[in-house]
């Protein structure tokens, strides 16, 4: 196996890595961690892997441990993107733009992500400021996507999808779980739809299967299988 992912099926950050791996058609071993209700990520032996107590954790075949989701996207693209389009290292201006949205993705986790855990799994939280922060972040994303469209670019950082889009996709798509609907964000809606149309796209709970594109006659691989071929 190429790497091991310590995974929780409802986590948007874990999904981010699963989605990227699926888009790059990489197989890996997923180890389920009882995040809820067990809080296993806050206990040994997980803390030994990641003292921060967060998920996901990615362990490479060389036993290198990655604990930051955005860094995992960079690592995946560096390892497995033969065309260098998801992380175009040779294109410095584009890399700068991607870095901007990788950092922004952490804000989405801290706002939409936290509000979602509060709304869905009763995690204690001061909800009002977190909700305001979430709406502020989504509005920034909406404005940026609007301006990208004026420039003729449908993606966050350029004319083709990059890891920036994958970094920002999960918690944006999952905001209805936190009772923030997409109705007021038309540019975000179009962009979410474009991501869902990518070859190799996978879903998670809260993000509906795009049955529009589905061939009713044939079933795809299970979204729950341990290894993603």
């Amino acid at each position, binding site marked *: 196996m190429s790497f091991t992912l310590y995974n*929780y*099926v*409802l986590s948007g950050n874990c999904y981010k890595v699963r989605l990227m791996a699926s888009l790059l058609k990489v197989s890996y071993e997923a180890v*389920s*961690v*009882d995040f*809820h*209700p*067990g809080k*296993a990520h806050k206990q040994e032996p997980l803390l030994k892997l990641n003292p921060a107590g967060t998920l996901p954790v990615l362990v490479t075949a060389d036993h290198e441990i990655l604990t930051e989701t955005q860094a995992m996207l960079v690592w995946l693209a560096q390892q497995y993107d033969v065309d260098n389009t998801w992380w175009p290292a040779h294109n410095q201006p584009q890399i700068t733009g991607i870095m901007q949205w990788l950092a922004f993705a952490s804000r989405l986790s801290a706002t939409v992500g936290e509000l979602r855990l509060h*709304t*869905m*799994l*009763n995690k204690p939280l001061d909800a009002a400021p977190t909700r305001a922060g979430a709406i502020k972040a989504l509005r920034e994303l909406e404005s940026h996507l609007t301006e990208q469209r004026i420039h003729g670019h449908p993606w966050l950082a350029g004319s083709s999808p990059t890891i920036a889009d994958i970094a920002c996709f999960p918690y944006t798509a999952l905001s*209805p*779980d936190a*009772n923030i609907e997409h109705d007021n964000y038309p540019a975000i809606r179009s962009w979410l739809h474009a991501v869902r149309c990518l070859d190799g796209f996978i*879903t998670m*709970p*809260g993000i*509906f*299967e795009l*049955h529009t594109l*589905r061939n*009713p*006659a044939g*079933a*795809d*691989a*299970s*979204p*729950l*299988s*341990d*290894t*993603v*071929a």
Partner: protein
Amino acid sequence: MSAREHALKYWYPVAMVNELASGQTRETVLLETPLQLEATADGNLNASAHKQSLSVQNAFDHWWVTLSDNPYPLFKVPEAAETDRRFVPCGVVRVLCSPLRAVENFLDIAHFPFVHTDVLGAEPHTEVYKYDVKIDDTHDEVIASNIRFYQPQAAKSAEGGIETQYIYRVPAPMVAVLYKTCPQREDAMDVIALFVQPVDEETCDVWPWMALYDDTSSMADLIQFQQFIFLQDRTILENQLPRKLPIDPGLEIPTRADLTSVSYRRWLKKRGAYYGALEGR
């Protein structure tokens, strides 16, 4: 009797038995009533509302409380005594919907290909074949049986699936118990239940619980399978209008596939279980 007064006469789950450490407290809401929970040093749970101590019992890996002095007895799940099963409490999930909508969705199979795509169902295997529903006179429960549905194998070699058998029981207005073909044992069925804690008429905390024969999967895998399925349902439940369950015919259009739901609504109406229900059309 008001809808709420009727609802008060049942037991409801408020916590998992192993959830709180000794001395740990938690607040929750049951039927619009704030509750204080505290785990005691001897492994029990103290529950109180408005500083009044409440009756508590331990069943199916959960603490159950009632706000009534004279409640109906807690329903039975005989399989809970079969010690070779794996018992899996799955934690709580908050859903903004009527507690009755949460139960009704659990009794529905026609949504599997569209909501639980490639796991519990897949096009083109969408047909719901004729099945039986009755009210069990001895226990006054809704029973749906002889249900069979095509389900894809949840493995990457998903070449062809299996036809799964289902039996449903509704032993209380806010509880549904499913008996399902067990992949590992031909002579037994897996049990998957949905215990619903009504916060108010349009909000509920849902506690899924399973009693399975499975020697291979990790506990985390079993829990996550169930959470994966239920969180797909949550998106549906929070988008049904109206939020309350229409208990009289007319507002919604059932088909033959909805026979369990039709019987469930009639059974609720007959016993006066209107909490979370919408009357009239």
